[in-house]
């Protein structure tokens, strides 16, 4: 992590970004989640890690209890189309409608638009640089805070989407 990213972080006037890094479901591949947790912390965020094997409902509950800005979901077992939307569903049910939900893992291109429609953004694949992900999160939170200056204000507007510059999704999987 470059110190420049750290500086960018500090320039945000509001509270530090609180982020829950979570692995919903039966997936022990935690290398990426652990690396990202450290990277987020180095970028000045407050990081909560779910540990392994929580259900999607438990992940949503943790997000509410910890009052996080962002839930970063990581799955490498192919179950993202089931587990990610479930987290979003439980988040809405529990009053976390405005929580930003970001996905990552082995996610085929053809699944990405579907996930985005369900409110899971980012959907970063293997090899994405840490900076890309950190910048994406910082940017998403900044936009949300501009849109919702007071926390807890409900909005019917769609969440802002900012696909990272370096990842062009030019075509769909057949």
């Amino acid at each position: 992590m470059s110190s420049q990213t750290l500086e960018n972080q500090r320039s945000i006037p509001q509270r530090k970004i609180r982020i829950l890094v979570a692995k919903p479901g039966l997936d022990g591949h935690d290398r990426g989640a652990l690396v990202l947790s450290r990277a987020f912390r180095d970028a000045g965020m407050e990081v909560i890690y779910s540990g392994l094997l929580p259900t999607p409902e438990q992940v949503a509950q943790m997000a509410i209890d910890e009052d996080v800005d962002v839930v970063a979901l990581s799955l490498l077992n192919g179950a993202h189309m089931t587990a990610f939307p479930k987290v979003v569903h439980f988040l809405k049910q529990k009053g976390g409608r405005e929580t930003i939900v970001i996905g990552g893992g082995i996610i085929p291109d053809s699944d990405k638009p579907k996930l985005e429609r369900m409110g899971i953004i980012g959907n970063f694949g293997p090899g994405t640089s840490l900076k890309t992900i950190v910048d994406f999160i910082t940017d998403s939170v900044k936009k949300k805070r501009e849109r919702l200056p007071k926390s807890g204000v409900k909005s019917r507007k769609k969440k802002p989407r900012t696909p990272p510059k370096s990842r062009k999704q030019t075509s769909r999987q057949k």
Partner: protein
Amino acid sequence: MTPDSFWSRKLELLAERKSSSGRGDVDRSKLDALKLMIKNWEKSVISSETPERKDVFENSSGIPLKRVYTPSDQTGLEYSRDLGLPGEYPYTRGVYPTMYRGRPWTMRMFSGFGSANQTNKRLKYLLKEGETGLSIAFDMPTLYGYDADSDRAEGEVGKCGVSVSSLLDMETIFAGIPLDQISTSMTINAPAAVLTTMYAAVGEKQGVPLAKLRGTVQTDILKEYIAQKEWAFPPDAHLRIIRDMMIFCTDRMPLWHYISISGYHIREAGASAVQELAFTLADGFSYVELGKNAGLDVDKFVPRFSFFFNCDMDFFEEIAKFRAARRIWANVLKEKYGAKNPRSMLLRFHTQTSGVSLTWQQPLNNVVRTTIEALAAILGGTQSLHTNSYDEAWALPTEEAVTVALRTQQILFEETGLADVADPLGGSYYIESLTNEMEEQAYRYFEKIDQLGGVLEAIKQGYIQREIASTSYIKTQQLESGQRSIVGVNKYDVAEEKPIDYLKVNPTLSKKVASRLRALKRRRDNVRVRKSLEDLRKAFEDEKANSIFPMLECVRSYATLQEIMDVGRNVFGGWKEPVLV
């Protein structure tokens, strides 16, 4: 627990070997002249007008590398003590006297996906294409001990491997495949005992006696807590069941490798080659102690151990790792555990090329990566090999990709002359120095783990997990900064139009599998099922009992995987890992 002085004594010996006072094979009278020659040469290099690419060169484990290696780097090396001949102690040069001149390594491709039926077809295809051993991958619910119809299995059935909920599925997987003529490797850990008894029960149905079943089940639960994180119970409970398996298999399944001590996952989780070497062997020593403490004779049960390593891209380091592993295992088994049977001292291993090294970007480049890794594994003397398919950074491989991966091994064997000489890089000044260095670093870890109270304690304290996470973070940062390059990822990358074609798992599969399971539950003798599960519970509750016999009866009565594992979850409870973040 008092730390064992064995490790510190060993480290002293290795330090002596490295220092110039070591009584090695190098001719002392010529050494001084050589050193002078190197000194002068170094001077000329430094004054040269062509600067080197970097100030410091080091390998992927962070071992500093010299410009060149010479006899002066191995003044303490004694050929007969440290290397020996192939098939002879300490087995540095290979476990068999003839190595691949006798027969090639086993080309064993890991496969399994979707339903039992689909996997059966894939296995038959691979056998027809010349594969010599089967290897089965299971899906996540199976690996954690849940049935396909469980809430926890939703969206995961058949995704990362085949779904097995009962003996019925295993019967389907092996339909038309005679178990007395093949060997099967099953990559499963927490429910390893259940799958072993299922395999035994399939054998019974085919009329193949237990004593004739050949194959390997992974079973290595310690590396699950360290790296892959697929457990069901607390570590002590799993270790007790492994003890039961050791006793059962030693007695009744003499050809069954009931444990495959695995560095693969440790490496994939981010460990360095040195860490993979050290933590895997430390796990191995723990299992030796487990069997010893159960009253088994080392020379009766250790010969069934086998190992499973990763092979990544740092070519020479990987070769040195395999050679160091063999020497360490032989030395420690003989000197610390008093093994007399050479077969207890032989470290035989399976290798899989690195999954982490594959990129989804420019996927055909992965064929090249896998070839280089396979080459290192063969030069390192592996007994069997799985080569990854080029599309595996994205999904389960297509048939075309699997075939290329298998052909890679066939080309290496048939066309290169690679299999004609044992340990062809032995004696290389560089390889021998690197082998020594990795050996020494592994012993430092053994000493440290011992000081913490052993592997189990080190896991409970999170020490091993944190060591790996640190390495993995540093590696990622090196990639970010450009200090480390991956072609197609942070160098020579291009905007890519679309990922290649990949294999998709039928989304209706989980419904089909679940309905098959419901039908089974109606059809089977449920009185017998309940009775067998109750007997298993009693065995689990009695520390002294052997749980494998009642487990075999559960399996025969078509009790499901989850029903069996739930008995354990009720008796032993679950597991929450120490805080790592």
